[in-house]
């Protein structure tokens, strides 16, 4: 028995989408007129862009928006019109500023980027050396090494903490959560000061890569344990109970059932944690000397990372140095972007997530 009564959807099946003549007219006028007036005033009167934007465009656009609302829907439409104008104005402003950040990094960074930038270090670079020599290879390596050490220490610690929070019934869990909250708000410079005061002042160690790795631990731990805890929580208890009911000891239930089910969530946690610390600057400045040469030994000698590389050349401030900084910024942004995209892909394939909002 097949569907014999269905009609195909006619073209005009959404009459509300056809805005009435009034509304259409109002929308057009209110969208174009203020911009036209603005451009005329800006160019004609030779005004500064921002000043004209705020003093001419915005008030006029607001007025037009209010009028459009009133013309279309009467008195109650006025506020709606204003809301739309304000929302779009602010959103655009934000997007332009943030877009400027991205755009600057990409365009300026691309200029500095070249194959040798990726693998060369700055051993023989002076302030006046051109861009053809030198690169951020040592910084990339340093980033990988320092971040890697931190990750190797913090991931097991963070996941174990998450296990503690979800699998045990310990009374101190609430306090631990609060402490992790507190750590999440730790200013990064204080993390650097902490390691400095604990290990370096006393002479136990000098400013080396390893110290930087340690300083990053309190910054990475809250992120990993929070996201890991969330993903462990999302594993349905029926799964775990099923394993226990079959006679599995707790640790086996965890490793063979819960953990695999939360696998993508844990991966997300790791990626987000790494993204968090790979861009940290202040703690590294305090705990590791920024080197110009490639150094793979985290226990001796200074080590540079991408953020500190950027900081270094930002400090020097001359044109070529700034270009090097942009180049490194682009590399860093690419790293962060990859981590982030990876985290999103991982979380999208999560098993047993909260059901999406149902549209009724």
């Amino acid at each position, binding site marked *: 028995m097949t569907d014999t009564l269905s009609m195909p959807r006619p073209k005009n099946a959404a009459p509300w989408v056809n805005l009435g003549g009034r509304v259409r007219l109002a929308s057009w006028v209110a969208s174009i007129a203020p911009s036209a007036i603005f451009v005329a005033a800006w160019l004609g009167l030779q005004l500064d862009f921002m000043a004209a934007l705020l003093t001419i465009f915005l008030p006029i656009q607001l007025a037009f928006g209010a009028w459009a609302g009133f013309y279309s829907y009467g008195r109650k439409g006025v506020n709606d019109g204003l809301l739309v104008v304000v929302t779009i104005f602010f959103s655009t402003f*934000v997007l332009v500023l943030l877009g400027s*950040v991205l755009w600057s990094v990409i365009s300026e960074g691309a200029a500095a980027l070249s194959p040798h930038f990726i693998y060369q270090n700055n051993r023989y670079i002076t302030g006046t050396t051109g861009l053809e020599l030198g690169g951020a290879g040592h910084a990339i390596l340093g980033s990988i090494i320092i971040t890697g050490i931190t990750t190797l220490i913090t991931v097991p610690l963070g996941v174990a903490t998450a296990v*503690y929070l979800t699998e*045990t019934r310990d009374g101190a869990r609430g306090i631990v959560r*609060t402490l992790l909250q507190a*750590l999440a708000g730790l*200013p990064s410079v204080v993390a650097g000061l902490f390691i400095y005061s604990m290990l370096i002042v006393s002479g136990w160690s000098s400013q080396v890569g390893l110290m930087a790795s340690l300083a990053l631990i309190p910054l990475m731990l809250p992120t990993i344990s929070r996201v890991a805890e969330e993903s462990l929580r999302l594993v349905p208890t029926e799964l775990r109970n099923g394993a226990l009911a079959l006679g599995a000891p707790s640790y086996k239930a965890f490793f063979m059932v819960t953990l695999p089910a939360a696998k993508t969530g844990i991966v997300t946690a790791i990626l987000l944690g790494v993204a968090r610390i790979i861009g940290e600057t202040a703690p590294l400045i*305090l705990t590791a000397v920024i080197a110009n040469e490639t150094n793979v030994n985290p226990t001796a000698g200074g080590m540079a990372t991408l953020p500190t590389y950027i900081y270094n050349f930002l400090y020097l401030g001359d044109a070529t140095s700034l270009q090097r900084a942009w180049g490194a910024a682009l590399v860093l942004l690419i790293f962060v972007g990859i981590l982030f995209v990876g985290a999103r892909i991982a979380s999208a394939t999560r098993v047993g997530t909260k059901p999406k909002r149902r549209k009724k």
Partner: protein
Amino acid sequence: MSNDVAPKRLKLVSKPSRTADKVFFAVAKAAGYSSFVLVAAILFFLMLRAWPAFESQGVVNFIFGAGWNSTSDPQVFHMGPMLYGSLLIAAIGVALAVPMAISISYFIAFMATERLAKVATVIVDLLAAIPSVVIGLWGLGVFSPVAAEWGRMLSEALGFIPIFSNAVDIFLRSPFIASLVIAVMIVPIIASITREIFSQMDQEIIKGAMALGGTRESIFRKVILPTASGGIVGGVLLALGRAMGETVAIFFVLNLTFDEFNWFKILEPSGGAVASLVLARFNEALQTELSALLAAGVVLFVVTLIVNTIASYIVDKAQPWRKL
């Protein structure tokens, strides 16, 4: 059955019986308790090295006084202007960021089409991950001259208002610029949280408001905002905490003046920020000054702790189902 004592409640505790399980739970517990160790260590070692500075400068003077001079005799280390500067810049930055963040969140959650909303969400979340040093680079290299120009125009147009007056006619490296950079940095953070709150709002409430004849604006103002306000405030305070601890984003666009408080002349090139103080003085600092820097770090940590605690409390009350 009469006058029996109520049956003794057996407390059922499941104790791990196998060794492997015992090890499992012990390791987990150790990891959990490591947070105690970590926070305790941070407080302990910082205080240990910072104490001499508190002692020699006097706690109140250190925190609220002005002047930072390592060459004078006796040395003076007072972080007042720096602390105030951190708070001022963070406050202005947040004040600027909040309307923008709420706007963009409203746009994504209630105005954009589904596809546009998804794309915008990804962009906003991605922007929240931009390292602050990159923002600092952009701040110095691209934004600073533009913002200085805005400052100049503000002072020309509205200079009669004290907050916008500028006696030195230099507009670079001012708290105004620093605030703007901070705002740019935290808008994605607040927007992420706000957008999440908006999209998780009970659709039934909004439908009910529409069925009663609510308009877009009236529903936003009277239903959406009040319901989301708790979470938004919490998110704002979290961003405030982050802004106060921020270091490299504003390091290059702010001129630090240690000797006097710049209370409100935000367009002048004179300001303070605790984290920038540490960064600026760290390399040259000898023992006593180092101690003072550590002390400044302690104060900063405590202040951000307070702000974050208030924030978590508010967020918790507003969204009891989010156990974070």
